[in-house]
């Protein structure tokens, strides 16, 4: 063995490629299932927060504040050991899915709330004055206008969720980070930690970078379109251009 980045070290990682792929598989499975849960929670919390009903708003607020102001790692440990203590052993992956889903759900809820609140009040009033009920107002008028607004920040939450699977290692998960961690601390593989961490990081980057780029571009094009659609803004731009000329 010579040096952190020796050929031997890279070869060790390559020989264990299957465990890394398995780890990636577990991470993807956990992230995807947690995402489904987070979407469901986010939709419910977001609708509660914008419902105008005080008790519902309050519950949504408490949930979001509680989740956002305590560490994910703590929530995960708490859930894992609390469930174990209650005699429920769901296994690391399912516990991880629940913890990450509940955590990301709070952020998704905020995204949904902000997007719904970005729709002008007059739209709600026009729909109500026409006699649409709550579900119809949301379905025909409010959500079609707010979903384009919520998608980019949601993609960012997906990126965060994917990276947050790394917290699973605290309860001994089988995800990519946990696999990497046991690899670099393993008796036979321990010397190869530099390449192992690089490979792990590269995998995360390859998944996350396209997603976050997509979100950024999406958001920019949305702003562009909104600018075009708004006659007032257009007028301001025109005047600014004239003045510049």
């Amino acid at each position, binding site marked *: 063995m010579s040096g952190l980045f020796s050929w031997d070290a890279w070869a060790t990682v390559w020989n264990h490629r299957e465990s890394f792929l398995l780890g990636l598989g577990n991470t993807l499975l956990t992230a995807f299932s947690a995402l489904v849960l987070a979407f469901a929670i986010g939709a419910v919390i977001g609708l509660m927060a914008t419902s105008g009903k005080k008790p519902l708003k309050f519950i949504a607020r408490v949930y979001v504040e509680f989740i956002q102001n305590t560490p994910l790692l703590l929530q995960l440990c708490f859930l894992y050991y609390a469930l174990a203590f209650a005699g429920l052993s769901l296994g690391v992956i399912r516990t991880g899915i629940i913890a990450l889903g509940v955590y990301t759900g709070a952020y998704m809820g905020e995204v949904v709330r902000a997007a719904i609140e970005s729709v002008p009040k*007059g739209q709600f009033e*026009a729909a*109500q004055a*026409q*006699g649409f009920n709550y579900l*119809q107002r949301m379905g025909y008028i409010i959500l*079609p206008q707010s979903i384009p607004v919520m998608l980019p920040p949601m993609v960012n939450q997906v990126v965060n969720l994917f990276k947050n699977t790394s917290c699973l290692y605290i309860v001994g998960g089988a995800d990519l980070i946990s696999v990497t961690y046991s690899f670099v601390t393993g008796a036979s593989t321990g010397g190869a930690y530099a390449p192992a961490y690089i490979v792990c990081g590269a995998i995360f980057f390859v998944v996350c970078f396209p997603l976050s780029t997509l979100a950024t571009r999406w958001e920019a094009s949305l702003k562009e379109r909104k600018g075009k659609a708004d*006659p007032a803004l257009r007028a301001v731009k025109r005047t600014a251009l004239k003045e510049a000329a």
Partner: protein
Amino acid sequence: MIKLEHVEKYFGDLHVLKDINLEVAEGEKLVIIGPSGSGKSTTVRCMNFLEEPTSGHVYIDGQELTSKNKTKLVRETTSMVFQQFNLYPHMTVLKNLTLAPMKLHHKTKQEAEELAYHYLEVVGLRDKANVYPTQLSGGQQQRIAIARALCAQTKIILFDEPTSALDPETIQEVLDVMVNLAHEKNITMVVVTHEMGFARQVADRVVFMADGQIIEEGTPEHFFTNPKNERVRQFLGKIIR
């Protein structure tokens, strides 16, 4: 047709409507005027429960309006035209006009579109059926909003300062449409406006509000020639030059 009985409205500590009693007959064209902050808009918004009164009763067509029956009763009886038009920006003009008839009034697509084109004709914008609201001027948007209200074919149309957000040069085109509409005998119109010429031309009755109260009411004739109340005189003196 519409009856407000002892209606009180508070926004927090702010007492915006003080014991409003008002009856609007079927087919009547009622214009509500008064300084800003006098509660005109809140009064008209109580008529379709966009604002629910803190106390008092609102009756539409003899039925009491409640938070339980408001969606259904409002759908069947009233339409509203807003200061900011509030057209749905993600839909074409035609979609804006056909949504409620199709989803709420059980019209087929064909019936709804025939209705939409008919009322687009009425407001003189038939050629704009397939454009999006943001591509139209304020005056055109408001005419579309009036067409949308007409598509619901309700007996009551509420207008909440329909020309206040418009450029001066487009106000007249909207007023013209409203004046034509006022010739329809069976439509009840309640109009909150600062357009005194319009009030004079179409109102059966004018109500003057100040500080959340109805100060004076009467025919336009009475109002513009010989108002009793000093506040009304002052207001009209300022607004009519």
